[in-house]
């Protein structure tokens, strides 16, 4: 598989505190890469550097390069808005807008002017909801409030919302951590389906989840990338002792 995202010599600071140390990583195209590690190890911070969401934090500062399809996304003239269309994000706690289900999914399409007319818009919304395995459950109530959905449904709505703008990469920050086991399973199955068409990076504190859904796993600790390997290697015979200790639950 080709490499979609190349991170080289990434160092990240919140003001005077360094959060990430010299990260070098290649994220392959159309695979799922999981980031695991104990709390506070920097995996969420790292994920957010991939779509420049850390720009919203005034004291955040980064050094190094993040190349997506060969282009450095931190180059001075980068169109951050276009970047965020290409690299979508799903958050830990689902955050639907206070609008109807339809309008939630349509929002990204509208602001990026991706549709020709009303029926095109409706078709795109339907596709996005089908791709996130939510269509059957909401097709009869598209105009009701998004807040009327259950937690798992809201999260799938947020996924549909992200899919609607046709990204190439989807970043997921602990997408199932607030959900019950059945809802979690649905999200995991969705991820395995989505990876056929999208490059997916998922932060999770649940190792078994990383084992179930990902093709590659990267283990972070205290801001450093300790090991990155195919998932079946990572969970049967990791190379680094720290990785083994974490995976077997000796700490973290």
């Amino acid at each position: 598989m080709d490499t979609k995202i190349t991170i080289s010599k990434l160092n990240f600071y919140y003001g005077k505190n360094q959060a990430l140390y010299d990260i070098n990583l290649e994220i392959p195209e159309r695979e799922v890469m999981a980031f695991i590690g104990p709390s506070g190890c920097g995996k969420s911070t790292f994920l957010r550097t991939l779509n420049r969401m850390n720009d919203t934090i005034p004291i955040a500062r980064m050094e190094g390069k993040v190349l997506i399809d060969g282009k450095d996304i931190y180059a001075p003239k980068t169109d951050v808005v276009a970047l965020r269309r290409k690299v979508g994000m799903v958050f830990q706690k689902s955050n639907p807008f206070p609008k109807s289900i339809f309008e939630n999914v349509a929002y990204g399409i509208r602001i990026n002017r991706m549709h020709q007319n009303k029926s095109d818009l409706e078709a795109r919304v339907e596709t996005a909801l089908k791709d996130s395995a939510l269509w059957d459950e909401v097709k009869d109530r598209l105009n009701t409030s998004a807040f009327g959905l259950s937690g798992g449904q809201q999260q799938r709505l947020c996924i549909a919302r992200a899919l609607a703008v046709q990204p190439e990469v989807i970043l997921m920050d602990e997408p199932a951590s607030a959900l019950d086991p059945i809802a979690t399973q649905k999200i995991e199955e969705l991820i395995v389906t989505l990876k056929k068409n999208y490059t997916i990076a998922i932060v999770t504190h649940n190792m078994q989840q990383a084992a179930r859904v990902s093709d590659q796993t990267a283990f972070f600790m205290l801001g450093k990338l300790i090991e990155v390997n195919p998932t079946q290697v990572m969970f049967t015979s990791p190379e680094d002792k720290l990785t083994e200790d974490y995976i077997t639950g000796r700490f973290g």
Partner: protein
Amino acid sequence: MEHRIIDQNLDILRDKLLLLGGTTETAVHKAMRSLTERDSDLARMVIEEDKLINKMELEIDRLSIEILALQQPAAHDLRFVISVAKITPVLERIADHAANIAEAAIILNDEPESNQVSDLSLMAQIAGEMLQAALDAFTSEDSDASRNIIKRDKEIDKNYNRVFGKLMGIMSENPQTTTTAAYLLFVAKHLERIGDYVKDICELNVYLTEAAFIKHSKKKK
């Protein structure tokens, strides 16, 4: 039934095991045929194909470990993966014995024909039927059938004792036939071991279906 991530892997594992089972069955048949039809080329083929079976065993091992590590199977799924992991080496050993029979056949085919081979054929037939039935019982998760197959092993043992006695007699009466008799004895032993191994498979079938360990227990009920 909803299709879970793990189902695909379990299906692959099942397919690989059944392929291994079928290949092993074939090996046993071919090995016996190489003896009864005095076809040493066939025997050499059996020995060569044993390498393939060894490769299959390693593949299944790797896949079972992967499923256990990555998919956290539970309940029936867990018993299934464990059963497959335990049945696989048993099949590989059966295939080894088939290869050994083939090796013996090559030597026996250079010796004059013996009329004791038909006794061995009977043993082989029982063993072959048992193996096929055991693999069927695994697929259909039929623990009653598995228990019945276990009982059939006594037939093989009885035949083995009879053949043993006959061959010992032949050897003492006619020392020139010692080589033949000895190798026939080896073949008989291999067949008897195959029967025992099929019993192991059936015990694992019962574990899979009923979650009961009946190995080493006197009452196989």
